[in-house]
């Protein structure tokens, strides 16, 4: 009987088999990487805002306290978005004719809210609360990054569930004294974890089992 396959057939067979295996592995790795990519996590993207507001200028350079605009951050789940009036407390005096502030003035004049794009956002089924995190000494910077250095605001951290879990499993290295919560320049002591453990006891911070219970964030 004649040969069905040429001598090179086996080489091809092996090449194809290995190629398929490699492709499967690569696809898995690609999916793995994609799920952790900045693209998927919407990190470091600055959406077009009606006003190019600079946290760097206001919070960093001018040193305006976070709570001046985000007034309910200590009292409510929501940090609170500044009403137009808050902007105009200063901008009725400063830069009153600046082109870029026109939408703010229009908003006040026409009594129509400014339509901002949310940057830091968790899914609807995640119930994040600002008030308790602030109360227990979790600084703004932990989730929002160095917002005082952002000319345009973007999401600094990937808000994956893992990101939340890391801290809920071991809060100590992320806790600071309450009065340093809004301080972006605070440098932790060398043994931050030890300080964190001490603060955890003072603030009666719950055990990891409670903090990682599903119902803490999902309900």
């Amino acid at each position, binding site marked *: 009987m004649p040969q*069905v*396959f040429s001598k090179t057939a086996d080489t091809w*067979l092996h090449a194809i088999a290995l190629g398929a295996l490699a492709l499967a592995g690569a696809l898995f790795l690609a999916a793995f990487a994609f*799920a952790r990519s900045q693209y998927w996590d919407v990190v470091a993207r600055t959406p077009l805002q009606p006003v190019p507001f600079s946290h760097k200028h206001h919070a960093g350079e001018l040193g305006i306290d976070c709570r001046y605009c985000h007034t309910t951050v200590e009292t409510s789940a929501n940090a609170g978005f500044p009403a137009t009036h808050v902007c105009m407390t200063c901008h009725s005096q400063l830069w009153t004719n600046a082109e870029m502030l026109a939408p703010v003035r229009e908003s006040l004049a026409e009594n129509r809210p400014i339509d901002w794009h949310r940057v830091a956002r968790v899914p609807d089924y995640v119930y994040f609360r600002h008030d308790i995190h602030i109360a227990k000494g979790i600084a703004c910077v932990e989730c929002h990054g160095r917002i005082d250095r952002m000319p345009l605001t973007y999401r600094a951290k990937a808000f*994956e569930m893992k990101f939340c*879990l890391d801290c809920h499993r071991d809060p100590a290295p992320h806790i600071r004294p309450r009065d340093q919560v809004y301080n972006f320049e605070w440098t932790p002591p060398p043994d931050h974890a030890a300080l964190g453990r001490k603060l955890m006891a003072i603030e009666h911070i719950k055990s990891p089992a409670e903090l990682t219970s599903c119902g803490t964030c999902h309900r």
Partner: protein
Amino acid sequence: MATRLGPLPVKESLRDITAEVARVPLQMPARVPWLIALILSLALLSLFLGSITYLFARGVGVWGLNIPVNWAFAIHLYVWWLGLGHAGTLISAMLLLMGQDWRNSLNRFAEAMTVCAVIGAGMEPIIHLGRPWFLYWMFPYPATMGVWPQFRSPLEWDVWAVMTYLIVSVLFWYIGLVPDLATVRDRTRKRGWQVFFGIFALGWRGSARHWAVWNKTYRTIAAIAVPLVVSVHSEVSLLFAAGQIPGWHSTIFPPYFVLGAAYSGFAMVAMIAIVMRHTFQLKQIVTERHLDVLAKVTLAMGLMTAYGYVFEIFDGFYSGDVHEIATIHDRFFGIYAWSFWGAVIFNFVPIQGLWFDRVRRNPVLLFLISTSVVVGMWLERYMILVTSLYKDFLPSSFGHYTPTFWDWSTYIGMLGLFMTPFLLFVRFLPSISIFEDKEVLAREKAEAAHA
């Protein structure tokens, strides 16, 4: 053993066997019936695809499910399909280890039937979700959520059991198929077929060294496959027995389910054997003696399953639990009593005919009896599921279940999912183990010569 009458006619030659089996893929003797069957099963397959498309678009509400009966067709058919599949593995593996030569004419298509049935069985829990795109959450992969599957859940067990069973069945079937693929490769004169069979035969040459390693591996896998079958259906039964629902919460469930599964499976094998030997004129290979033995095994399995019934009822009463007793009472007399009595009648009345030699060797009768068993086991799975769920503990939450059009269309369509690959297998692959039959025939001839 020397005087034993072999399953194959001694007058056959090795060449005859090759010719008879290889003829099916190479010449296709029953082209028209096969085509009709294929068109039918493709139509069913389309029905299935249409049904699940609608299902996935709308939700599992298109079925007749409710609270309390929130499991019905998908789970009941999952058990049923898996049960049908078990016979293939048992025939192939267990009888191989026990040296039962008669299996050699049956094992190949029985295994193929297993693979097709397990595909169906594996499909059921997936479509059961209604949102199958979340299936991957059942596997432990490194998620950004940081959450893992829950390994105490019987449903999680089932995922692994069915996956394992499917892969092992396919591998077992395939390595048994390799030498025969080589045979067909060598018989065909058409280039396309040569390449097709050549690739899948992997270059098998029939070397004695190969045979030695192959033999060991094949038997090792067979030895592993037998406990696998037992474990898979035991786990399926735990899906029910792990719940506290009266009628489920019973330690007898694992053996009861395994036996029932094998019972329905052997009946299914008998049905397929009868159809194939008739359609493809394989009566020299699948002989009356094969039917006789199959019928005997089916009868034995049936009696053991009947014992399971008796004991389940006894168990319920013996427990003294009011809910258990109420459920048994309800199975006898409740609104779903038809499923219980249907199961009893279809399962255990016709098989009594199998005590008689003439019935066992009569293909038509055996086919009808086997059909009855398959239907009976269908009813049994339905009965176990629905009669337990619809009345559990609190009278206030009792409810009824009626299958809807979409329940039926998904189920009937799934017959297409089973039949289509099986028909393709019959058409394109040697559906009876050529080399194993040759082995038997050679031995028979030698024995005949000695005698």
